[in-house]
């Protein structure tokens, strides 16, 4: 690729470089990504750029995606597991407009998946990359607000504080109550915040076939988990790590051992639990699986969250 070939011009709307960012910025971000891959779990600072969307809308993930996107890529964007939420729709539209890449909602068709909360239920493959939008990359921030100190802790692998946080959870709730942004140790070295994915998805990060990239726009950090890397969720010997358990299958497709969202059905308190991964649910229904709610359509419903 060269800069000339990547320039996409849109009549009447001025010029966009391919995927919005200029080539120099993309090269800078790619260097940060390469460094992040070389040191799994280590937060690499990068010069985060202003994006035409507010912080909190995934500007870090968008910059990472923009820097790795090629013309032949097929992009999937999810938020809370769904392709249809405002955030997912607007990021997908952004890349359709600035890079004219193909987009999909199908996990197995995508070459790049940008996500805010979930990892798809279907195991990702070697030729896929998952890009996480991260609001707060620093797992030690909770107890140590000083950046100079947290850097030192990472450099010296002083991670006792992470267990202080888990200790507090058990002392207060009788169990480790952290359900999102559950800290992990990557490749036996760096402690990393997979924020804000639910801990249900932590085991999927372990030895994943796909490359995992994390971008935090406001905090100007990129980190990565290369394929086939050990990712261990922190815990205590007598309080081992556990994922969320759901005591029922998806009401629509009958899937078990998947992450479920509570869906409000009506104003009278009716509700049911359905797959948070909408693509997974639809694919199962297409294959003939049904749950207790049978063929109730998903469209037009609101999630409880």
């Amino acid at each position, binding site marked *: 690729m060269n800069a000339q070939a990547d320039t996409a011009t849109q009549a009447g709307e001025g010029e966009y470089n391919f995927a919005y960012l200029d080539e120099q910025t993309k090269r800078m971000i790619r260097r940060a990504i390469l460094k992040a891959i070389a040191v799994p779990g280590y937060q690499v600072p990068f010069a985060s750029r202003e994006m035409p969307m507010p912080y909190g809308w995934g500007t870090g993930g968008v910059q990472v995606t923009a820097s790795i996107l090629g013309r032949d890529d097929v992009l999937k964007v999810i938020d809370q597991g769904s392709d249809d939420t405002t955030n997912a729709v607007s990021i997908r539209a952004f890349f359709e407009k600035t890079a004219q890449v193909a987009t999909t909602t199908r996990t197995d068709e995508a070459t790049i998946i940008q996500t805010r909360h979930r990892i798809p239920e279907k195991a990702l493959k070697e030729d896929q990359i998952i890009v996480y939008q991260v609001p707060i990359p620093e797992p030690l921030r909770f*107890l140590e607000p000083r950046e100079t100190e947290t850097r030192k802790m990472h450099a*010296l692998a002083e991670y*006792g*504080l992470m267990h*202080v946080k888990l*200790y*507090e959870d*058990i*002392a207060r709730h009788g169990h480790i109550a952290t359900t999102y942004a559950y800290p992990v140790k990557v490749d036996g070295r760096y402690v990393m915040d997979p924020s804000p994915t639910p801990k249900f998805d932590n085991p999927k990060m372990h030895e994943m076939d796909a490359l995992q990239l994390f971008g935090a726009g406001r905090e100007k950090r990129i980190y990565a988990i290369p394929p086939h890397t050990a990712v261990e969720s922190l815990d*205590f010997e007598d309080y081992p790590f556990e994922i969320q358990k759901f005591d029922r299958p998806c009401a629509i497709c009958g899937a078990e051992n998947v992450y479920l969202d509570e869906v409000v059905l009506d104003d009278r308190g009716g509700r049911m639990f359905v797959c948070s991964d909408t693509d997974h649910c639809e694919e199962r229904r297409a294959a003939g699986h049904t749950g207790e709610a049978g063929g109730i359509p998903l469209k037009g419903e609101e999630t409880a969250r």
Partner: protein
Amino acid sequence: MSAKPLPDEEPLLRASALTRLYGERIGCRDVTFELYPGEVLAIVGESGSGKTTLLDCLSTRLAPTAGIVEYRMRDGTMRDLFRLTEAERRLLMRTDWGFVHQHAADGLRMSVSAGANVGERLMAVGERHYGDIRGTALDWLSRVEIDESRIDDTPRAFSGGMRQRLQIARNLVTNPRLVFMDEPTGGLDVSVQARLLDLLRGLVSDLGLSVIIVTHDLAVARLLSHRMMVMRHGKVIETGLTDRVLDDPQAPYTQLLVSSILQV
């Protein structure tokens, strides 16, 4: 406090010609002494005498301008503290050393429970059994006379005296050999001070701790220390066994200090 350490033992810490300047201004100058295992050394002086600068240099919180501080590591080797790697130095500080601050908020994590405050050092050195950590924390809370029912409260809910006692427990949980103290009773009510001093005295002798304590309060020095160094304008002007210095001060300035305390 009496009972001197054995004279034939090797020193635990040695400061040689330790000097810290702040530009032209002198923090402390040319301080040389040895501290023996089980010994409590009080560094006394008025505000601005250099005693806190000296404490910070000894505890590696501040780099000296000149001079050497050596410490006998647990393996018996004498090491120049400012030539340790940062990892070695930080490990030393959270295992073999303690530091009790005047203001508890500087030495405690105010937003986490008393139990986690005590347990933090254990977790830092790899303890991964919640039940064991909690058991040790309970034991230490009772040793510093904090009711076990307070284990899940944060120090924000504690009185000043309790906070200092919690700070002490947090430091002692890894069985350090040397504890630095910076005016540990400063700002507390007299009756609270007395109780804290009693507790400290008991712990120091039970555990055979070596202590370097900075205080402006000669009564604290009298009660806790074996030996004293009197500082003025950054220099040590008198040093000796505590009882001797307080009962028979040699330097005119020490005589003045002692007489003014007697008037209080």
